[in-house]
Each structure stands twice: as C-alpha cells, then as structure tokens.
C-alpha cells in the first residue's frame, strides 16, 4: 500500500492536548508537510498549553511563544532575521487560533499581508476561545452555544469570512482545510511553502470539549462539515477559486445534531442555517465559475 501522507513524525508524543483535539492533528499534519526546517511562532491559544510546560516541548522544531495579537508581526520579525542571515530554506509558520487570528490578531495579520512578509499563517479554527473556556469568537457560527452566548442568546450572525478577507489583500494563497482531509491540507501546505508572501490557511479543528461531542467523533464531524458545505473546502490561489465539491451534499442537520453546542436549535432555526449554508455555497460556486 502506498501511503500518501509522510510517515515521519515530527510532533512528539506527550503533548497536552485534550482527547480528540483537532488542533493536535492539525499541527501533526502541518509538521509532516513542512519538515524540520520550520520555526513556529505561537501566540496565546490552546497550543500554548498543548506544546507542554517548561522545560518540555512537543513541537520538535524551534518554537517562540508570543503575545496574543502578534502571531503575524512576531513571525514577520523572525522572517526578517532569517532574511538578514540568509537562511532562505527555513519556513516561518505563524500558528494561531481563531480568536488570535480573526479578532485580536487581525490587524497584525492584515499588516503582514499588505507588506508581503514571507510566512505561512495557519489559523486552526475551533470556532471559539477554547483555551479560556469556550467563549464566542468572531468565528463562532450562527446558532452556536458558547459560555458567552448562552442558549437563550446563542450566537447570531455568520462566522467572519477570513478566507475572503485575506484573499482581498491579494495574498498569493488563501485557503480552507480540514483535519478530516489531511492529504488536501498537506498538499496545500506544500504549495504554500513554494509561494512568497503571506499564505493564509484556515483549518477546521473540531473541539470535543467546546462543541460538546464524544472525543471519538472529531474526524467524523470535521468530515461532515465539508460534506454538508457548512465549512467549504476551497482555495483562492492568485485570485483563482477552486472549490472541492462533496460527492453527496448532506443536510446540515447531520452535522449539527452530533454536537451539544447546537442542541437547543428548533427545526425552524436549523432550516434557516440550511438556507444560509446553501446560499453561501451557491455564491462560492459562482465565484469559482467566474474566477476559476
């Protein structure tokens, strides 16, 4: 049997992720794709804990812990230093959660994108502030419970569309990915590695604790997100759209029903989510048609 995912592990065992953590898988695949010549810049996020407490580190590559809003700017500094020292073979990987990316970190990321700093920016998207105890972020989807959007006042309005925001910066590569599709993620990282500038990747990383599901369902739920098109898998490469279409598009209820964070939703509310999902999907396909 031919394995398509690199067998070599860089991420060490013994990290501190929760059981079934999507973010741990995401990093494992990212390091497989990028190899040892990588420097990680890590702001406040779950991964601050996952890597392990002093003096331990599970990443297997140099890692600099930085402040919440500085994944991109600190990464830009590391990249500047590598440029000065002529170390062109090293990849700078800024690795942040959705809060550190879409909320507090968006200014620095926008700045880095505009300047064309050479780094791969991965946002592992678990759709809330999981490290501080499941508070809503601007990536929390419509209808979701979080500890700051309680059932009676669940999150209203769509996720911030970060891939489009980044694509609007005219960066070379702005893509979504999912831990349920590692081959796709690894291939995208390998493309990103070859391109100059900010390469933005948003990988859906389900969180059993925050999304309220049994930890063995992580991959299944991530897969359903793609199959229901609630989290479409697509790329914007130099302005050209390419969308991955599921063989059988499933209803969003299949994705929602497995997760406690959506348990309170009525049939009508689920229909509303289905309608919005279909609309966004239609728009995306249209973009692919026009800009494919």
């Amino acid at each position, binding site marked *: 049997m031919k394995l398509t995912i690199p067998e070599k592990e860089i991420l060490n065992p013994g990290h501190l992720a929760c059981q079934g953590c999507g973010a741990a898988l995401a990093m494992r695949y990212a390091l497989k794709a990028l190899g040892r010549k990588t420097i990680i810049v890590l702001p406040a996020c779950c991964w601050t804990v996952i890597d392990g*407490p002093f003096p331990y580190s599970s990443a297997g590559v140099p890692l600099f812990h*930085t402040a919440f809003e500085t994944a991109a700017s600190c990464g830009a500094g590391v990249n500047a230093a590598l440029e000065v020292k002529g170390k062109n073979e090293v990849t700078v990987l800024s690795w942040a959660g959705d809060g550190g990316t879409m909320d507090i970190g968006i200014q620095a990321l926008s700045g880095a994108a505009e300047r064309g700093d050479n780094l791969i920016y991965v946002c592992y998207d678990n759709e809330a502030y999981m490290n501080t105890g499941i508070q809503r972020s601007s990536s929390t989807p419509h209808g979701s419970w979080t500890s700051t959007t309680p059932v009676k006042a669940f999150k209203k309005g769509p996720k911030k569309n970060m891939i489009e925001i980044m694509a609007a910066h005219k960066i070379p590569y702005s893509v979504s990915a999912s831990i349920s599709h590692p081959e796709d993620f690894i291939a995208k990282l390998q493309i990103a590695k070859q391109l100059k500038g900010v390469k933005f990747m948003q990988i859906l990383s389900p969180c059993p604790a925050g999304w309220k599901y049994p930890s063995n369902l992580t991959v299944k739920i991530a897969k359903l997100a793609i199959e229901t098109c609630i989290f479409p898998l697509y790329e914007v490469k130099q302005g050209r759209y390419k969308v991955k279409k599921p063989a059988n598009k499933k209803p969003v209820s299949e994705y929602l029903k497995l997760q406690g964070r959506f348990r309170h939703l009525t049939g009508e509310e689920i229909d509303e989510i289905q309608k919005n999902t279909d609309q966004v999907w239609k728009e995306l396909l249209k973009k692919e048609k026009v800009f494919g």
Partner: protein
Amino acid sequence: MKKFITGNHAVSFGAKISRAEVIAAYPITPQTEIVEKLSEMVASGELKAKFAKVESEHSALAACIGASAAGCRSFTATSSQGLALMHEMLHWASGARLPIVMANVNRAMAPPWNVWSDQTDSLAQRDTGWIQFYCESNQEIVDTIIQAYRISEKVNLPAMVVLDAFILSHTSEPVDVPEQKKVDRFLPSYDPKYKLDIDQPHAFGGLVNPEWYYEFRYKIACSMEEARGLINEVGKEFGKQFGRNYGLVEKYRSNDADVILVVSGSLSSTAKEAVDRVRKKGRKAGLVRIRAFRPFPKEEIRKLAKKAGVIGVLDRNISFGNEGIFFSEIKSALYSQKRKPLVYGFVVGLGGRDVRCKDIEKMIDSLYKKQGLKKDINWIGLKK
C-alpha cells in the same frame, strides 16, 4: 566624524553604527525623523539591515522580538502613545530576555493632545524590566545607544534610550559620530547562545507553573543588578576609547554642596547653569543628573546624601495620587540611611512647559530658605 544633527538623527546614526540588523518601527511625532532617516539609510544600502514598516507600535516591538529571538540585533523607536501601545510587548521583550534597544522620545500622554516633552510615558514603563537611560544631549544619545547594546547583550535585557521631545529631538547640536571601525571594536556582533535555530530546536517562553516562574523573575532582578555595575564599567571603557565618560549618574559641582538638585534629561543643562549662577553668589549648590533610571543608582544617591543637607528633585512627570516619580525613588533610596537629608519635590515643565534658568535659581533659593516649600509636591509656575 563631527555632524550638526538633531537628537532624532543622533538616534538614527547610533542605530546605524551599532549595526542594527532588523529595524521595525511605526511613525509618531516627534519620533518620525528617526524612522525616516533609518529608512533612507537602509534604502540606500548605507545600512545593511531589514526595515519592517509595520502597521502599529505594538507590531513594531513584536517584530523586533521575533527578530531578536532569531538572533538579530534589533532596533525600534517610539514616543508617548506609541510606547503605551507597546506596553505589553515591553514585558515580553524583557521576559524573553531579548537585548532589543529602543529609543523613546519623551512626550506627554493625551488627552488633551500634547506632543511636547514630559517623562510620564517612559516612567510608566518603569516595571517592565527594561534598562532606562535618560540623555542630556545629542552627543550622549549616539554614545548611549552603542553602550546600551553592549550592556543589554551582556545581561540579556532590553534597553530604552530616552530623549526629550523637541528640546533634543528637533534641536541640532554638533555631534561626534564615532567611527564605524572603532564602534565595531567596542561592540562585537550579536551572536546569542540561545536562539531560534532549526539545528537546535527549543521552545521559548512557554507555560511555566508556579514551581518555576518565581526563579525566572529572580534571574531578571539579578541581571538588572549586573547591569548596574556594567553601566559604570562600560561607560568608563567607552570614555577610554572615545573620550567621553558615562555612568549611572553624572555629578556636577556636588562634592562640597550643601544643597543638591537631582535632575534628568535635557533639563540638566539648564539646572547646571542655575547651579553656576548661584555658586557665583557664594552658595554651595550642586547637582546630580540621573542617567540610568533602571537600574536605579541607589548607592550614588546615598553617598551624596551623606554630605548634603537638602535635596531638591526636579520631576518632569507626575504619578497621580502621589508625587513626582524621581522624588519618590530618591526618598525610597534614602529611607534605610541613618542620616536623612531633607528632600523636596518639584514638578516642572509638564507637556513641554518651558523651565527657565531663573525658575531653577528660585527653587535653589527656596531650598536654602526652606520657606514656602511643601513636603511632597511643589508645582512650579502653575497658572492660577
């Protein structure tokens, strides 16, 4: 080489001859000229460095932190609101033990908007673990940036070189910009033992539980103590090689003084003139200029206080709800001493208000008479 330059350009030349490798900065009045000059130097190839034109001061220091962690000598400059915006990263730089050097052009905090001189911006950063130097002249600015790198890189702590808005930043003075070859001998290239290195992967700044955090802080405190000695040592060595001596403090006619003024920054020049004038009238006044605020020159202050009966501290800053910051620090240094002189605090020149020689002469006069002086704050020249 002698140049007739502003304080801001003195900063730019200081960074250049220190061979800063990564510069990241955001413009803010009155610091902008520093950034402009450095941009020119990098663009023309005169300075071989990477200049990151970032979108905020917070990002400027974050970029310097990344660059320094990856093994490059890093530099930034800011002022007032910009420094306040950076505050979080100031802690990050010292906590990560990165010897970044930053120039801060002392400017008042808003509102109301005010771009003129006032020390409250940098003194609010007192507890961030940065070495702080307050410069009197443009010459001292160039010289201090070179020394700041030398000291910082020895103790692994960042350093802030402070200059007064407009009084120094936009005023031209003749400055001897040291020769590159001589500076290279004085300041070897930055090659940290621990850095982000793919051949030796380490994680820096990760989670530390209460079992270890305390020791990390203790080590910073120890390094600050080491810096205390080094500032004098490096200042003397600089004197040997470049002919200009520096230390934690500068004493001016203080050996036989019965009344001593404690001052900092460019105000010191005016105060020296005031001391000269009252000396002519037969009064034995003297002056101490605090050059290094962190680490604080406790011993130097204590030695002086052994002789003088009265000390007057001039603060171009105010800690609301208490008093001038230098004043508090001076008193605190003297508390453990057997013989305690009378110490009076003067708050002067906030937001760039002119402090004239005759104002300081009056202060010295009042220190002799000890009349009309309040024990904590004396506001000088306040409009009724």
